């Protein structure tokens, strides 16, 4: 055990830091759930990609740097510290990208990954359907193979960024006789295909952060199938949960929220201490964010040395989503009567981005497999309790 960064790792940190310092837009971008903000974020992806900082864990030939997980964590630390823009193409670069690298044909990789990397093509994820939420195996949207085309009919929903995205990836039922996990196929669909209707759904903040996607005889060439027909479920599940989880929600994000929470508390101590539970919650949040960071480093180091990820990785989602909710709840109590005010309200001085974060934190325990479903998985697969 050696808990010091190597010189190489420190040099890498310096390089990340100085590039970000010279390139991160001085003013925060608008929300990527607005049209203008989406365009700004797309442009930021291109900037990142030009500097070869778009996806540092990707191989060099794909414009990445072939970084290991520790370097990824370092990158994220610097990224969140300087408050660089959120990643509009996260579903592409963090979720689909690695899956493509594993299951895609050479043609698919060459066609899709470069445009994904520079933000030219932004991706939405289309798993959920009105009647297939937690129970994803209940997917009913069909894709029928006719010649060299799939004809897709049905409906997806809750598809993040789909309003302005260019493509979606999803699972479709290719075998109409099949049930549950069998007979599903992983297909990539251009969102400008004839027969597609995208209907924005306003989220808690009023902005259309996700959308319904209707498919009416949509034609998609077979070259857009990822993996074999009928193998959709295993393609979707195979790229290990942990590494994706780590990509999507690395500790830096929560450590920065915890730091801001400590600052908020310290700046409002007189009023905050009227409720003795607040200080305890701030302290607990700080510790949990640190625990999350330590545990992530420990796992990343183990994986770097060739270790395997086990069922314990399913604890990750619950831990960060509850931490995020707790931190924002605490910030809301510190802000008191100002907590409900939108940041631009004339008397809302000092509320910062807490309200937005609080709203978004409500969704953490829901998306990416609800926390109840995660608890079932932990009990059954990690602890071995009876089904």
């Amino acid at each position, binding site marked *: *055990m*050696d*808990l*010091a*960064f*190597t010189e190489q*790792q420190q040099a890498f*940190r310096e390089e990340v830091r100085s590039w970000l310092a010279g390139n991160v837009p001085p003013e925060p971008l608008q929300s990527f759930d607005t049209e203008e903000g989406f365009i700004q974020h797309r442009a930021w992806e291109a900037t990142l990609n030009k500097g070869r900082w778009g996806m540092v864990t990707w191989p060099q030939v794909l414009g990445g740097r072939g970084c290991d997980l*520790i370097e990824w964590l*370092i990158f*994220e*630390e*610097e990224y*969140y*510290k300087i408050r660089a823009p959120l990643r509009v193409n996260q579903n592409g670069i963090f979720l689909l990208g690695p899956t493509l690298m594993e299951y895609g044909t050479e043609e698919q990789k060459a066609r899709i990954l470069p445009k994904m990397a520079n933000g030219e093509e932004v991706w939405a994820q289309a798993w959920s359907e009105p009647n297939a939420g937690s129970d994803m195996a209940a997917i009913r949207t069909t894709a029928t193979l006719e010649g060299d085309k799939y004809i897709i009919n049905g409906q997806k929903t809750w598809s993040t960024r789909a309003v302005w995205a260019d493509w979606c990836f999803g699972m479709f039922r290719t075998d109409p006789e099949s049930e549950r996990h069998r007979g599903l196929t992983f297909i990539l669909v251009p969102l400008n295909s004839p027969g597609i209707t995208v209907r924005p759904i306003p989220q808690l903040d009023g902005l259309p952060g996700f959308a319904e996607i209707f498919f009416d005889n949509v034609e998609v060439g077979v070259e857009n199938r990822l993996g074999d027909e009928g193998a959709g479920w295993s393609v979707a599940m195979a790229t290990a949960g942990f590494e994706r989880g780590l990509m999507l929600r690395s*500790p*830096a*994000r929560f*450590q*920065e929220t*915890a*730091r*801001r929470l*400590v600052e908020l*508390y*310290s700046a409002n101590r007189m009023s905050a201490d009227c409720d003795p539970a607040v*200080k305890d919650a701030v*302290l607990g949040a*700080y*510790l*949990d964010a*640190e*625990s*999350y*960071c*330590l*545990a992530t*480093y*420990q796992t*990343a*180091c*183990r994986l770097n*040395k060739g*270790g395997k990820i086990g069922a*314990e990785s399913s*604890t990750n989602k*619950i*831990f960060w989503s509850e931490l995020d909710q707790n931190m924002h709840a605490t910030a809301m109590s510190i802000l008191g009567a100002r907590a409900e005010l939108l940041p631009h309200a004339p008397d809302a001085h000092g509320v910062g981005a807490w309200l937005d974060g609080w709203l978004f934190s409500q969704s953490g325990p829901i998306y990416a497999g609800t926390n*109840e479903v*995660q*608890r*079932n998985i*932990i*009990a*059954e697969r*990690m*602890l*071995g*309790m*009876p089904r």
Partner: protein
Amino acid sequence: MDFTFSEDQLLFQESVRDFLINEVTAERIRASWETDSGREDALWNQLAELGLTGMTVPEVYGGLGMTVLDFVLLAQECGYVGLPEPLVHTVMVAVPLLNDIGGELGEQWLPKVASGEAKVIVGLEQNLLVEDAHVADLLLIQQGHKLYAATPDQVSLRYNESVDPSRKLFTVELLTGATVVASGEQAATLIASTFNRGALGCAAQVLGLAQRMIDLSVQYTSERRQFGKPIGSFQAVKHHMANVAVRLEYAKAPTHRAAYAVAMGQEVAAHAVSHAKLVACEAANLAAKNSVQVHGAMGYTWEVDLHIFMKKAWALANTWGDAGFHKRRIGERIFSTDAVLGAGATFV
């Protein structure tokens, strides 16, 4: 950056775990409750033969010359079986203190600890009582700003019964003959670092205790049937245990980091130990609470083994600094104006 244990450390853990699980059974612990001292020389000698009592004793004195980092996984295993013998105390608290005091005292006692001939027990004022003072051959006792060394004939003990029948607790009164081994600044430094190692030992042990309570509960709920099914198939029961698993999973890395910080003498050690002690004890307390619940009335009995581990976890949560003490220490650091927090600050 390498936050992993070495092959050797993991292998040692495995062999000690096997030994402890075979030897330190619940029946043996219950049998020890019926004896006067609650401690077994035979078991202590076995631990010494494995080199465990001398793990942190320097090689020149017949020990293995290892650090608390090498021992932290073993301390978890001691917790897992609820080992009544003061092994964690010896390796993490007493021996490093003797090492630091050094001189004739170290020369005289360290070889005996390594060989299993003698037990050395430390009593700090931060703790209300002294654990295992009755089996000590040498006591190192804090009084104000001084540390005293005393042999059994130089102290008077008053026994206090604990809810955990395995814990033997005493007030120690120094009689004539006890000698000062450190005072002033030196004593203060020794006391502070000794205290941190004690708290670290608690954190590591309760990780093991929490895991044991989970294992017992999973086993029980897989066997016990109601409504025609194993009760462990009910989601409410599953989620009780899943909640414990989540808290426990994230208490491990802080404890290992604290062991590293202590072993390396890092400035952050006290802070890291408080972090570990808080989250590990919180996980163990939750394990206790939810484990009793999923055992039903069985969990409320003397007969079922759960209480052996549960009561130890309760006790350890409030010794070597309770939650209030450790939260105060964390708070002093993070709420200070020059605190460096947030992304990238964890390992500096």
